[in-house]
């Protein structure tokens, strides 16, 4: 059976895999230090996105709403944006960056958020906040276009476009991570540090995992500064991970400042991490040190322990953000698994141009890729079409598919709210490859024991 790719055929969505653009823009917003985004729309567009961030990270993040009510929907609500900016600046004296994020309602009524940013820059800011550095950045994120993935892509581009400048070369590498967990950022920074590469990271999210401190000072917020963002134009190169999440910003940096750019790498698995390091080496001229040979060897050792004995030929379904799913599928193939069903993100019509997907279509025997997918595509194949699976990998919104069909599931991606602490673990880099291989194995082991399926094999392993 050859590999195929096609979009979801029903017009509607039963159990969505992804949410809408404003959520992606908000995820970018919380990555920046001294930044609070204002979402111009109904309050639910913020309240629920904050809730899902807090479900995933078990932390709270600051995001504001223009609180669109009925009168604003009828007569226009730009006055609400003006008031929101003023209230926010008065009460949060450290705030320097305020993305103004539109939603479906305010795009439909045609509120001109670019215009209101100009007006505020000309009137409110110089009059009431002279001498205070405040950046208002309009981000158009209508919910009826794309998904949270494209919303993140657009927001990163708009923020980069606003800030990036050129002074003098700083020898640093721009690392645009895409929508990843703090654990991934830690691992990526570690790999670069081993290569003695200084990087500007969009976004520094390790502090999302903030401590509970005796002096009550812990706050979950990103750490990428305005200065970091400004310096992007001075870099020696840009590595943009996750093709669908960072390409717009990377293209802008390349075109505007002529920065050598590598785009679309997703360092999930050994092979993709190797590629990532080679790209970094090409851009920076830095050598890959022996310490990483050792780390890589340790990961290979761990994977060898489980791969051909336990993982080989295991049938997997994957869903989530497209780059994550593609990266996981590639790694699964390296581990001799069979990723038989891939459910990819949104209505982006260009997935079949992705060289990674083209390669899988060419070389993989059994694989169905559904684009613009929902979770019903997974569930009905299991319940109605007898799709046999040994494992599901995806985020928590699909948990009932796994629970009801008694298929073991490894939680990956965003959001993961029904397992503790997963945001702390990387899926990228050599550490991520180790974590994935061992977590897949442990998930299968628990299932073997629960179902009494060759559980005695593990007696002597």
């Amino acid at each position, binding site marked *: 059976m050859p590999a195929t790719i096609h979009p979801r055929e029903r*017009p*509607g969505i*039963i159990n969505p895999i992804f*949410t809408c653009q404003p959520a992606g823009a908000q995820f970018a917003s919380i990555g920046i230090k001294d930044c609070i985004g204002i979402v111009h729309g109904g*309050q*639910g567009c913020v309240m629920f996105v904050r809730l899902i961030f807090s479900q995933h990270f078990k932390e709270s993040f600051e995001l*504001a709403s223009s*609180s669109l009510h009925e009168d604003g929907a009828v007569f226009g609500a730009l006055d609400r944006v003006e008031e929101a900016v003023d209230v926010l600046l008065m*009460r949060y004296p450290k705030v320097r960056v305020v993305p103004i994020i539109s939603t479906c309602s305010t795009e439909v009524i045609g509120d001109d958020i670019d215009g209101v940013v100009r007006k505020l820059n000309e009137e409110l800011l110089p009059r009431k906040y002279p001498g205070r550095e405040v950046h208002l950045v309009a981000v158009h994120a209508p*919910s009826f276009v794309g998904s949270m993935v494209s919303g993140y892509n657009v927001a990163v581009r708009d923020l980069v476009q606003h800030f990036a400048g050129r002074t003098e070369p700083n020898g640093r590498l721009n690392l645009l991570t895409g929508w990843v967990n703090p654990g991934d950022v830690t691992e990526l920074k570690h790999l670069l540090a081993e290569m003695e590469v200084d990087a500007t990271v969009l976004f520094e999210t390790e502090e999302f995992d903030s401590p509970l401190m005796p002096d009550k000072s812990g706050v979950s917020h990103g750490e990428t500064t305005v200065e970091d963002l400004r310096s992007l134009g001075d870099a020696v190169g840009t590595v943009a991970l996750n093709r669908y999440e960072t390409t717009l910003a990377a293209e802008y940096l390349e075109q505007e400042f002529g920065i050598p750019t590598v785009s679309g790498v997703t360092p999930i698995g050994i092979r993709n991490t190797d590629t990532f390091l080679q790209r970094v080496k090409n851009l920076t001229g830095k050598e890959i040190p022996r310490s990483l040979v050792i780390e890589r060897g340790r990961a290979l050792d761990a994977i060898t322990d489980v791969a051909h004995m336990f993982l080989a030929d295991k049938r997997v379904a994957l869903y989530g953000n497209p780059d994550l799913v593609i990266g996981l599928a590639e790694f699964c193939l390296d581990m001799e698994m069979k990723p038989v069903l891939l459910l990819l993100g949104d209505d982006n019509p260009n997935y079949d141009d992705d060289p990674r997907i083209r390669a899988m279509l060419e070389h993989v025997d059994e694989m169905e890729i559904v684009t613009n997918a929902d979770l019903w595509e997974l569930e009905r194949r299991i319940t109605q079409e007898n799709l046999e699976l040994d494992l599901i990998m995806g985020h928590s919104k699909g948990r009932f598919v796994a629970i009801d069909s008694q298929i073991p599931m490894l939680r990956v991606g965003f959001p993961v709210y029904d397992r503790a602490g997963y945001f702390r673990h990387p899926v990228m880099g050599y550490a991520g490859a180790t974590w994935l291989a061992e977590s897949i194995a442990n998930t299968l082991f628990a299932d073997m024991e629960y179902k009494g399926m060759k559980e005695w094999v593990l007696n002597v392993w």
Partner: protein
Amino acid sequence: MPYHEFECSKCIPERLRHAVRKTEGEDLTSALPLGYLNTVPGSISERGCAYCGAKHVIGTPMKDVIHLSHGPVGCTYDTWQTKRYISDDGNFQLKYTFASDVKEAHIIFGAEGLLKQNILDAFAAFPHIKRLTVYQTCGTALIGDDIEAVAQEVMDELPDVDIFVCNSPGFAGPSQSGGHHKINIAWINQKVGTVEPEITSDHVINYVGEYNIQGDQEVMLDFFDRMGIQVLSTFTGNGRYDDLRAMHRAHLNVLECARSAEYICNELRVRYGIPRLDIDGFGFEPLGSSLRKIGMFFGIEDSAEKIIEEETARWKPELEWYRERLRGTRVCLWPGGSKLWHWANVIQEEIGVDVVSVYTKFGHQGDMEKGIARCGNGALAIDDPNELEGLEALEMLRPHLILTGKRPGEVAKKVRVPYLNVHGYHNGPYKGFEGWVRLARDIYNAVHSPIHSLSALDISKDEIPTDRGFVTRRMLSDRDLDPQIANRADLRPYSGRFDIIPEIRARRAERVANGEFVSAP
């Protein structure tokens, strides 16, 4: 009773009249916080939208229904799997959510055709489900799709299905409360009176404003079974669509959450002459009084007294065990709406804690009036609090615990205040006599957590105690307790199971098997 001015909100004077501090000899007429007014933009309020108030809070707990949101995917995704309203037949309402997936072309050319195809596909995917609700969202409200016409068209084509339409876009009102109102009125206008129920008892009620959070409704149905009361419908937790179309045949509307569901009770009174009785399933005394009142209405007080006697004998010693150990515990009661007055007094009387603050995200002035009246002096009442006000209040009041929602609970954690989820509950159900003991247990476990007791220690500055490898909750809670109380043999901590709902369901199934009366089959 002066208004309380927050330092952080001095620059937004319209906030001044949204908080009051209750003082000696208070008179509610002198100062009552404003409520249910438009939110101050940019204040980082905790409020949600009218769409979620309608769809997420009230619509979706209905269990035998396809719940479809007409709009872009976000509204559906974001509100899905963020609540704990279970049902007794497989949790379809938690597991499945439907979005018409409106895209840019639909915004320009209209999405009615898309919606129709969606409805047909949804029924085709779940052929055993014949009922469907459609919720308008901001986008489809603004483009003016005629959802009713689409619904009617489908009903004409598929005679065995029924569709309810709720037009409550996110911007319709200051908070989720606007959506509560809209769906109440839409339901009675469209659906009540369209099904004739089978009456199985002389005592027939609608159970209204009850959402079966972690099984609350099923706890109460167990009592109604024992009282011989037929529950025609539950609005809406664990409720059936067609039962709710027959609400007009009840003798009495028994109302729990007046904030979200008094509107339909008031309409049922006006249109069908059904009286409204406000009750309270939380706390021994309020629950006992509630069962008594219902019993009195039907002239069956004895059945209520029997339940109260049995349940009190079984659970009071466990409640008392906690009350003795929670005296003086300072709590902020910061729920969404009605719990601020449902709990304000009884949590102090029966669980022993001191309520130092109440707040409401979407309550109205009437909720505050009742809430403040039930607090002690010194309590701070806040309407539509925002992030900074909440933190300032925590710093000022230094509570031992806050009772609030998931995300605000994470804020409190960082200032070393543990929280309990009073929307979805930690380890509920909290209704019923046993449920109330479970709340007391959860409060005790949070407040006397040995891990929490470590959080104030600064190992870089403080002398680190080295004499202990562990501390138990009892070592903390009983430290200053009179030994005579600590050792009382007639009291005991909670003795129930982690999940009590299977026991209740088994008990009710046994009644059915034995041919005994059940309140709602």
